[in-house]
């Protein structure tokens, strides 16, 4: 096997009539990687998956799989396999016929098909007596496994998953997420997983590709996306966060100096490693995750702090969420581990502080 990317997408554009669904997407996927394409509805993630699968022609740009240009190669001949959002199990075929279908099309003899189908059934932990049943007689989770088995049986190079878990209830979703992860580890196939659920992407993927309006905003490991978002949209999409406006006044190799009308910071500077490379002098945003903020005293020795008034308290079982309003009217979200004794009360005037270790400074943009 070569060391190069298994999937290489370069400058792919796709337009439906006048509507541009993909505006120049480039992405390299490493062999055996689990990559998640994440974004809101209409961001182009499913369109990109369709281009990879070969269901649609790209308007321009190239898609290579194992170095081979896929232009003009029909879906049937691509080494990819798709698990559809609605699963797309054939209702007129039994479970065994569904799973064995790709092999039947490759003219594998019936006995060999039966053996491989049984192997897949075992891998997917499906009961053998299901083989003769029709898909509609199976539960949602079982149908999911049948769909996966059908996609895996032809040993694809790339398994494409188009939000296959989105229709399931939360509990079943958790079970199947764990199973997907296990499956990925055990078969070593490259997974490209489309989802609008960022939590799911963080759980499953080695790398996450955040998309918006036909473009890739950021590609990186889950921790990169979470702690070092490339722009305010990514920061907010990943979960609730606090983006506080600051003004950068200077930057050298080690440190970045800044001022803020609200944040009290004795040093008024940050290590350059906590500031995105594209941040220059002028307006910037300090990204502070809700779980990093704590109540503190006015004179406490913390890196950054500001005064605020508690406006809401939500008890969420394991955690408690607060909303607080700063003196200049910015709303802040704070999340703490649940405790029987709440550290802050509704309407209370408090000081909120956080350490500079886990913050991130990024350029302002569309949120």
């Amino acid at each position: 096997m070569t060391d190069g990317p298994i999937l290489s997408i370069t400058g792919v554009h796709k337009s439906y009539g006048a509507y541009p669904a993909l505006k120049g997407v480039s992405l390299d996927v490493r062999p055996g990687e689990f990559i998640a394409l994440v974004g809101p509805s209409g961001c182009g993630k499913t369109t990109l998956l369709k281009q990879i699968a070969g269901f649609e022609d790209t308007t321009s740009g190239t898609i290579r799989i194992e170095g081979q240009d896929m232009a003009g190669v029909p879906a049937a001949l691509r080494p990819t396999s798709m698990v559809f959002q609605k699963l797309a199990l054939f209702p007129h075929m039994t479970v065994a016929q569904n799973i064995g279908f790709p092999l039947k099309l490759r003219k594998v003899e019936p006995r060999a098909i039966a053996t491989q189908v049984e192997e897949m059934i075992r891998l997917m932990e499906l009961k053998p007596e299901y083989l003769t049943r029709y898909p509609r007689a199976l539960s949602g989770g079982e149908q999911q496994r049948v769909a996966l088995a059908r996609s895996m049986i032809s040993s694809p190079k790339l398994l494409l998953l188009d939000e296959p878990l989105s229709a399931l209830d939360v509990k079943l979703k958790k079970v199947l997420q764990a199973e997907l992860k296990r499956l990925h580890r055990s078969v070593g196939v490259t997974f490209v997983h489309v989802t609008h659920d960022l939590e799911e992407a963080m759980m499953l993927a080695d790398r996450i590709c955040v998309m918006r309006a036909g473009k890739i905003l950021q590609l990186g490991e889950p921790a990169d996306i979470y702690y070092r978002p490339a722009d305010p949209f990514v920061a907010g999409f990943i979960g609730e966060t606090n983006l506080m406006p600051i003004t950068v006044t200077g930057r050298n190799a080690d440190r970045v100096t800044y001022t803020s009308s609200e944040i009290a910071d004795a040093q008024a500077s940050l290590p350059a490693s906590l500031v995105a490379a594209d941040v220059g002098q002028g307006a910037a945003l300090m990204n502070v995750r809700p779980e990093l903020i704590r109540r503190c005293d006015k004179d406490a020795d913390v890196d950054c702090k500001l005064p605020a008034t508690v406006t809401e308290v939500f008890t969420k079982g394991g955690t408690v969420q607060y909303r607080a309003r700063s003196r200049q009217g910015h709303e802040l979200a704070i999340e703490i581990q649940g405790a029987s004794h709440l550290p802050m009360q509704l309407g209370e005037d408090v000081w909120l502080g956080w350490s500079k270790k886990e913050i991130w400074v990024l350029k302002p943009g569309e949120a």
Partner: protein
Amino acid sequence: MDMEVSRSWRDPELWVKALPSVILQTTCFLAPLVMTFVLTFQKTQNFQLNWTWNLATWTDVFSKPHYWTILGHTLVMAVACVAVCIVIALPIAYGLATRFKRLDSEIKVLITFAFITDATLKTFGWVLFLDKKGAANYLLMQMGFPPETVAFLFTDWATLLGMVYNLLPFAIFTIYLSIDNIDRSLILAAYDAGAGKFRAFWEVTLPLSRPGIWAGSVLIFLLGVGVFLEPKVLGGGKSPMSAELIRQTFETRVNWPLGAALTLVLMAVAIFVVLLFSRVAGMRKAGQ
């Protein structure tokens, strides 16, 4: 919320609620059928109906092979019409449902137009076209064919042509609807699994459009068994079909008991064929 439906026949409320439907069914369907049945045991003399209970009509029906030949001919024509209609309608419906999806509403309007244009008009149109001095022969002569190449007006083939022409929209419509209902991702899944266009059609689209094909077949068969316009106008009345025979028996020969008996025989045979049809279809489905 849901109350269990366990009503007794003695429940008076049930009878009251069922009454409109019962009256409608009885007056419009059951009563005429019973009257037709009763008619078969009567006699006509001097173009007058005589209320004398006897089995003469039924002995006549079962002893004369002529009626059965016509019935057999009718069934053969109807089945042939079903086969030709399905074979023609399938690719048309498939094309309409897949290739011309953008013209969806226009297509439905056009199909509806095909239904509401009078069949008599269309059938006579074919006579003009297929006549010895008609447009078809004229065109073929211009192309160098000998005169009267199209000489099948007033044959069974012309009858079949007319039947297919008039009944084809039913097949297109039912098959179109069932193909249109197939989830597009199933077809994509077939491509993804490695199927070419033809294989995907054969393995997925065709089996899933079977309900439409059966519905269209049954509809066309029943309508085809009852045609009298096409055998008369295009077939020239040379080899009549059952419906035309029944019409003649009632109108020309004024033999109402015989007409009634022939009607019942045709109905029974048609229903039998449809049941046999659906039995076979049901067995194939269960065997999958």
